[in-house]
Structure formats: C-alpha cells, structure tokens
C-alpha cells in the first residue's frame, strides 16, 4: 500500500478525500492543513506520496514541494487544486512533482494512472 501524506487546508474535503483514498487502497498516514505542518509530518512519517494542495494558508504547494526535496524519503508529489492548471505557471523545475490533478477530476483511478505514468 502506498503511504500517503494528505495536505489541504479545507478540513471536510480532506477528511472525505482521505476516506476515498483509503477505500481506493492507499494508506493515508497523515493529514496536514498548512505547508509547515506538511513538512514536519513528512519528516516524521516518511510517506511515499504527498498529495499537495497548491493554495495553502502559509507556504504554497510549490514551495512545500521544493523543500521536500531535501527530505531523505524523497516522496513523489502530486499537486492538486480546485483552480485550473493554467492558472499556475510552469513547475518543471520541481524534481519530486509527478503531475497536477484538478480537484474536480481527482479520483483514485486518475491518481493511480498518473503514478503509473512516472
């Protein structure tokens, strides 16, 4: 089972998403509501995948992804947002980022597909 760290500041949405992922065969090891919380939990739980919301109250998702690069676990990062992909710039420079999924199309199938691509 893939160990997942879920990062999103919208608590009800995050809880539901965690349930959906667990039902879909993922092991959600921790949930974070802010960028700093995410970095701490990533260090503590060594996840294989970080499902990272782009818009967070403190750091944005890109910054969190950049800082995760020094984490020895080097988890795969999938960025998610309720905004459109084109609302954000390029993030090719981010080594851990495997892709972007809009929240409206975030399903277990889509996530599995994306991870399989890399």
């Amino acid at each position, binding site marked *: 089972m893939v160990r997942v760290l879920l990062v999103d500041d*919208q608590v009800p949405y995050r809880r*539901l*998403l965690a349930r959906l992922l667990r039902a879909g065969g993922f092991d959600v090891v921790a949930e974070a509501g802010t960028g700093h919380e995410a970095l701490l939990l990533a260090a503590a739980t060594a996840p294989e995948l970080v499902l990272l919301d782009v818009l967070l109250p403190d750091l944005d998702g890109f910054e969190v992804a950049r800082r995760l690069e020094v984490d020895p676990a080097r988890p795969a990062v999938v960025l998610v947002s*309720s905004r459109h992909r084109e*609302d954000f710039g390029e993030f090719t420079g981010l080594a851990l980022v495997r892709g972007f999924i809009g*929240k*409206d199309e975030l*399903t277990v199938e889509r996530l599995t597909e994306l991870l399989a691509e890399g």
Partner: protein
Amino acid sequence: MVGPFALSWASSALSGLVAVVDVVLAATAGRQPALWYVWEIGSPLVWVGVGVLAVVIRPDRRVGLLMQLLGLILLVDAPAGFALSTTRTWAAVDLVVARAAQPFQVVVFAHLLLSYPEGRLRRPLPRAFVAALYAYAAVVGAAAAVTTIRTITGQPWTGTDPVAGFAGGGSSTAINAGWLAFAVVYPVLLGLKVRQASPGRRKTLAYPLTCGFIVITLFALTMVLVVVGSVPAANPLSDALPYLAVLTMPGAFLLGLLRERLRYGSVTDFLRAVEHTPIGRLQPALREALRDPTLRLVFSQDGRYVDEHGEHVPIDNDRAVLPIGGDPPIGLLLHDPALNDEPKLVRAASVATRLALDNARLHAVVRQQLAEARASRRRIVEAAAAERRRLERDLHDGAQQRILAVGIALRLLQQQLDPTDRAVTEALEEAHRELADAISELRELARGIHPAVLTEQGLSAAVRALARRQPLPVAVDDALPHRVPQPVETAAYFVVSEALNNVVKHAHATRARVRLSLRADVLRVEVVDDGIGGAGREVADGNGADTRAGSGLRGLADRVAAFDGTLSIADAAPTGTRLIVELTCD
C-alpha cells in the same frame, strides 16, 4: 470741479490768444530784430506745450497746469521787454498789463520748482513762502503798473523801451533787496525738500531741482550784484537767465514725470506678469514693477511678519507699509515712502498682489483637492480590486470546496452501492455531471470577478490566458521585465478584457493583438484589431456613453484615470481600432 483737461484747454486757448496779440504788437510796432520776438514769444509757448504734455501724462497732478500758467504769464509779460513805436491805445494798455504781470514769472517758476512733481505744496513752510512770494509779486506788479501808467500818461504815447530786470521793479534797490531775500531763503527750502524726500523720490527730483537750483542761484547772485551796485539792473547774466531756464527746465520737468509715468505704466505689465507668478517670484516682480529695489513682501504668521522663506522680518519705521487684502491683511508690502505720492500705483500694486496671492492660494487649494480626489479615487479602485480578489478567494475556499467535497462524498457513496443497479449508476453519473457543470460555472464566475491566474502569475500570464479564451486569434506581445504592482495589474487586465470584449462584440475583426510594455514607471497596454474602426470617434464625440461599446470604454477611462493614466483610441491602419492605455506604477 473743473477737470484738468478743461483747465488745460482754457489755458492753452488763452495763451494762444495772448501770443497772437504779442505777435501783432511785435509786427506792427516792434523795433527789435525779428529773432528777438521769435524768442520772446516762442519760449513761453515751449512752456505751454510742455505743460499740456505734462497734463496728458499726469492729469492727476497740477504740475502741468503750473507750467502752462508760467507760459501764459511769460506771454502776457513779453511786451515788457519789447522796444515799441506806436500810438495805439491798446498797446499802451497791454504794456501796463505786461509790466504788472512781470513779477509773477519768477514766482510761478519758484512755485513750480518747489511743488514738483505733484504740483501741490503739502508742508506749511513752503506753502507760506510761496504765498508770501505771490503777495510780494502782487505788490511789485501793482507798483510797476502805477509807475507805467504814470509814465505813459505823463507824456504823449509814442512807444516804449524795456525796463531792466526780468523780475520787474526795474532799478529799485528796495524791490531788488526783497527779491534777494526770497532768493536766499528759496535754496534752503529746496534743500529741505531734497532732504525730506525718500531715495526713490530724490531720483525724480534730481535733474529738475539741480537745474532749478542753478537758475535760482544765478538769479540770487545777479540780485546781489545789482543791489550792491556793481552791475546795472540790465546785465548779460540777468538777460541770459530766462534763456537758461527755458532751455533746461521744461525738459527736466517732463523727464521726471515721464520716469514716473513709466513706473505707473509697468503696473499693467505687472498685472500681466503676476497672473501665474508663484509666491516666491512675487517680490522680484513687485520690485521691478515699482522700481523699488528695497521693496519687501511679507506675510502675517503667528502674530509676526515673515518673508516667503519664513524668515522673520521686522517692520522699520522708515518703510511705508501697504496692507494687502482685508482685515487682517494677508500680507504687507514694505516699500519706499516715495511711492505714497503715487496712490493709484500703490493701490494697483496692492490689488495685483492680492490677486496673485489669491491665485496662488487657490491654485494650491485646487492642487491639493485634486491630489486628494486622485488619491481617494485610487483608493476606491484599489479597494474594489482587493474586494474582487477576496471574493474570488471566498468562492474558491467556500462554495467550490463544498461542491468538490460533495463530489467526493458521491464517489464514496458510489463505492457502497450496487454497481449493477443501472438506475442508481445513472443517477450518480447525472449528479457528477451536474457537479462538474456547477464547478465550471463557479470557476467562470470567479474568473470574471478576479482571475486566479492574475493573482498567481501576474499580468502577462493572465492576458495570455484571456487571449486563448477569445473566439478570434489574439496575439500577445509582452515585454514586461517584472511584475507591476497588483492594483495596476488588475486595472491593466480589465482594460485588456474590456477592449477584447469590444473587439469581439462590435469590431467585426478577424484578429487582434495585445502589446504590454513597461518604460520607466509607465505600463503601456496596446490593443489593436483589424475590424471596422470608428470606436475612437464615438468616444471623442462624447456620444460614447450612448453606444454599446461606449459605456465600457467610459468605464475604462475612469479606471485608467485612477492611476494618472491616459487612454487613447484611434483608427488603426489600414483598418481597425487601436486602443492605447498608459498607467503609472508608483
């Protein structure tokens, strides 16, 4: 009260008449060379002419009338110097009048010089002195008339020879001693006049008073010589004095008046000059206009007076003080007291300064209000932009997240249900589609309020995204080296958005181009299309608000104005419309 011009006319007419009588007398009975008569009648006419000029230059002064009076007296007493052969009675009468008038020529001259340049004696001492002179002249004139009548009637009237002395009184030592007494006192009064005059006034007085002083001194010297008996009453010096006076004095008087007139005339220039003079330049302008290099302009501040730099200025007693504006005055002019002789000039300067100060003050007030209005308009526009950003964020964090959560809940629900139940599966699929549409609509709504891409990536990316969504090809050229302040980005974005909106709706264009460039602190936005054009005319005609495209453009103009920006719309070549907006990024 008879006006100066009427008096001048009357005096001139009378002088002309007397001159005609003099000419007739000289032509019919004169035994002297013609040139003598030309001088005797011509020189008074010079005084008359200069007097008329003086009245024209300064109608508010009596000095011109005094000059004319001097000319008239000289014309009346001219026959006293004539050598005549005649038996006509009117010539004898004329001679009596001439001899009686003769003493007055010195008196009027003295009066003129002492009262110059106003033509009025203000101080009691000169006033009494001149009055005494007139009284003495009347006595001497009466004595001369009696003597002349006695001479004429004592023997058959066949003509006359001139008696000595241009002041009248002939060789009478008593009379000449009287003249001498006056001639000694007179320079003292002139000296006092000069001493009491302010530096500015002394400049006006310098030339006429020097000339007059020399003439009077020579007169006194002659009288001394005559009284002590070393020269006869008829001597070359005393004969030369009237020539000297006529050659030097009228011109001197006129020059002095002209000098003042020039000063007076410059008030008009001053008025013109101060119209847009900043307060700091007013004092030099006033100094120039009033020919007073010592003049100072001071302003009332906290119960004392300061200059334009805020330095304290003490009010000296030797300066004349002219208040500017009402009570209390907004300022004071400290000037040469000589200017007080020019009440009109000083009043004009006061009013002009008041106007200039009011002007400057109003300018400052308007500038300040304009700056405040600009700042508040800018604040309103910025607040509106911030509110849009907040609203977009709220939609994103609120409604959109809830709908997305419902979507996930539906997927969880889907996993619990029997996948073979077609009705349930279809209902769920329908719910998913509805949710996707809702999210899509919500996104569009949020983008219309404030596009997330603008917040996240700035103007270039937002404009590119906007261009991609247009139904016609829109090329984007952007050369922005860095992001500009958020309020400017928002304003520029909506300018492009509204402009493209107009292009799509009204221009019938096949393509459009957006250019963004930053020069110094000015963001330039250019939107060009290849459509039918004409949008510029609608705005320029002022009919823009009535047209469909116009109201949007008006809104653009308002938005742009909040950033001290400019908006121009013109036809593009060969067809289409070019909209250029420049916004200041400060």
